[in-house]
């Protein structure tokens, strides 16, 4: 997909003025994932301890990632599957297209996969003459609307039921135009019947992977709908899209993460379907795919190892950081302009499409820290965003005014006497100017603040000088 992260400020303004979107975001805040996560976490006394253990386990994996990937590959091969190592999106797409062509595919069903979005797989499948069909209901809705996902767990969370009904009427033209579609149930039944036919007709099924298991060569998918299972068990060929950091050593290690994943994502004790797949169907099996392929994608992740961004590779894509972010809660996911929104997107997007393209995203944070406090893998998201801000500054990518402002401030901050003198002078001048009203409606250089609220006037003395006096 074409990134629009460069126009984040304009995107955000549009999102704030979009009443439909604001309505959906309010529903989310009122009764959504954050509330349910808090309940689920409170119900499991070990939850906080598990977070620490998960972090340590994943850190160890990343430290020996090459070992685990080679072990994983051997196990996949032993089970009759094939691992396709892909350096970047283009290699991954080429590998998928080759498999689809060889399989003589026409219809390709897809379970939800963020890697699929990252490599813009649908566009390329279509261009090559295949019919990709998203089968997760939310993904299906945004596919027929030609929209990117706005949330990594609930891709159509920004839409109202009326908008979905409208899209169903526009797309499912062979159905009675007067059929009732006012309730989610009716739309679900319609999608279920329609997608069931696609499940049965598809020659290739593509899923993502929540985890890969080195010990057994297995891939794990977690869904609530069961669409992933129909995608991977009905067609003749199953392709798994996974990035290199998804590997964990054993079934027990995956269990540790599974105890955190659903609770952090949707507040469920466990998702409805957790499926562990290992290779193609066995000799006497009555069902299952004849071929099992794993697209093992790097796409910039190896470059994060051993550096300050390595912590991001622990991410299990639960979306808790999105659900708890005041910025995401105000503007939704589309404003971020690429595949991964919210705090995890603000950290990950610059690594994948460059800080020049996505420099706005790590700036779109108040550093309130809620994301880090709920992250099941204890990723220090605000700190990682700060690293990007520093790099943006070093690369002179930020606007000149901001750069000079920050340079001036940092000069002052490094010279305490001068800083105190300037602060005291500013407090006096502003205090004197604002004496009458006690606040400012406009201030030079501070329009970003005063356009939407008044700035309180200082009381005439700086904190430091008041403190010195009191002592």
């Amino acid at each position, binding site marked *: 997909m074409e990134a629009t992260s460069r126009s984040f400020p304009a995107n955000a303004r549009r999102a704030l003025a979009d009443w439909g979107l604001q309505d959906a975001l309010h529903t989310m805040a009122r009764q959504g994932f954050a509330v349910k996560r808090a309940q689920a976490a409170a119900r499991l006394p070990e939850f906080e301890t598990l977070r620490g253990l998960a972090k340590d386990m994943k850190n160890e994996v990343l430290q020996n990632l*090459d070992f685990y990937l080679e072990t994983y590959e051997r196990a996949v091969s032993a089970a009759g599957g094939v691992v396709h190592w892909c350096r970047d999106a283009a290699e991954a797409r080429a590998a998928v297209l080759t498999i689809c062509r060889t399989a003589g595919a026409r219809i390709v069903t897809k379970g939800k996969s963020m890697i699929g979005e990252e490599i813009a797989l649908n566009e390329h499948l279509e261009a090559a003459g295949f019919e990709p069909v998203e089968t997760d209901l939310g993904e299906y809705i945004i596919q027929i609307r030609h929209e990117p996902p706005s949330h990594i767990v609930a891709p159509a969370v920004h839409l109202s039921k009326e908008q979905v009904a409208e899209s169903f009427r526009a797309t499912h033209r062979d159905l009675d135009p007067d059929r009732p579609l006012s309730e989610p149930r009716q739309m679900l039944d319609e999608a279920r019947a329609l997608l069931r036919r696609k499940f049965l007709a598809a020659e290739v099924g593509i899923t993502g992977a929540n985890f890969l298991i080195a010990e057994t060569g297995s891939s794990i998918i977690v869904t*609530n709908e069961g669409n992933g299972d129909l995608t991977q068990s009905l067609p003749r060929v199953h392709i798994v899209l996974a990035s290199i950091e998804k590997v964990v050593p054993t079934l027990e290690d995956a269990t540790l993460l599974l105890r955190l994943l659903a609770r952090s994502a949707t507040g469920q004790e466990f998702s409805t379907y957790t499926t562990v797949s290992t290779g193609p169907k066995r000799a006497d099996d009555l069902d299952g795919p004849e071929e099992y392929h794993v697209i093992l994608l790097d796409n910039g992740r190896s470059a994060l190892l051993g550096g300050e961004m390595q912590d991001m590779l622990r991410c299990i894509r639960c979306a808790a950081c999105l659900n708890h972010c005041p910025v995401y809660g105000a503007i939704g996911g589309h404003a971020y302009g690429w595949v991964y929104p919210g705090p995890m997107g603000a950290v990950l997007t610059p690594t994948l499409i460059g800080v020049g393209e996505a420099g706005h995203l790590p700036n779109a944070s108040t550093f309130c820290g809620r994301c880090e406090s709920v992250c099941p893998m204890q990723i220090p998201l605000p700190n990682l965003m700060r690293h990007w801000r520093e790099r943006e500054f070093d690369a002179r990518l930020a606007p000149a005014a901001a750069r000079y402002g920050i340079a001036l401030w940092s000069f002052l901050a490094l010279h305490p006497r001068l800083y105190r003198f300037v602060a005291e002078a500013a407090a006096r001048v502003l205090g004197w100017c604002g004496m009458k009203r006690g606040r400012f409606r406009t201030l030079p250089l501070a329009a970003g603040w005063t356009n939407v609220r008044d700035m309180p006037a200082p009381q005439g003395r700086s904190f430091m000088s008041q403190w010195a006096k009191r002592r």
Partner: protein
Amino acid sequence: MSDARADILHRIQSRLRGGPVGEATATALGERLRAHPRSLVPARAKELDRPARITLFIAMAEEVQATVARVARAEDAPAAVARYLAERNLPARVVLTPDPRVMELPWRETALALRAGVAHDTDTAGVSGCFAAIAETGTLMLVSAPDRPTRNSFLPETHIVLLRAEDITGFYEEAWDRLRAACWTGAGFAMPRTVNFVTGPSRTGDIAQKIELGAHGPMRLHIVLIDDAAPA
């Protein structure tokens, strides 16, 4: 493509340490894989006796909209299945998973229309056995095999699972241990092709954040619990 493999591994190694993991580390990591140590197990599922495991399993399964019926003997399961379908006014026909533990039961004593084999789209109700269950979260664990096709758990609108009380484990690690023991060959642990953990019927919240059951998988999940200590 083999170039990509070497390249990715090289990139990883050069970022981490400049070469492959040392021999000692590799041995230690290999040991850890073979030992597959457990991490922290939630207290709620630990050291439960049989009745407590059953109680926790039922409570957790019902919380996610599964229904549970208890019968004292496996021979009573077919009648319980027929009763369940009749009570809900569902078609009186089932596709049975061709698993001997399911097939050996007296299905012909019921009035159900029967078929055994892989489920088709036209099957309204499917009956499966199950390998184990996990009380911790009210989860069923189904394991594929030549006589246990996977799609029978997903295609029919109603999925009925026969669960023996002795197969209810407390927590996931216990279930993994059972699987490792059941799939142990001379060469070690042979992971089955598919392991399905099922916790309640299929659901989605993708339209206007409202939870609806029966998204793509079954609309109903009914568990017939075979428990010889059950009240008659």
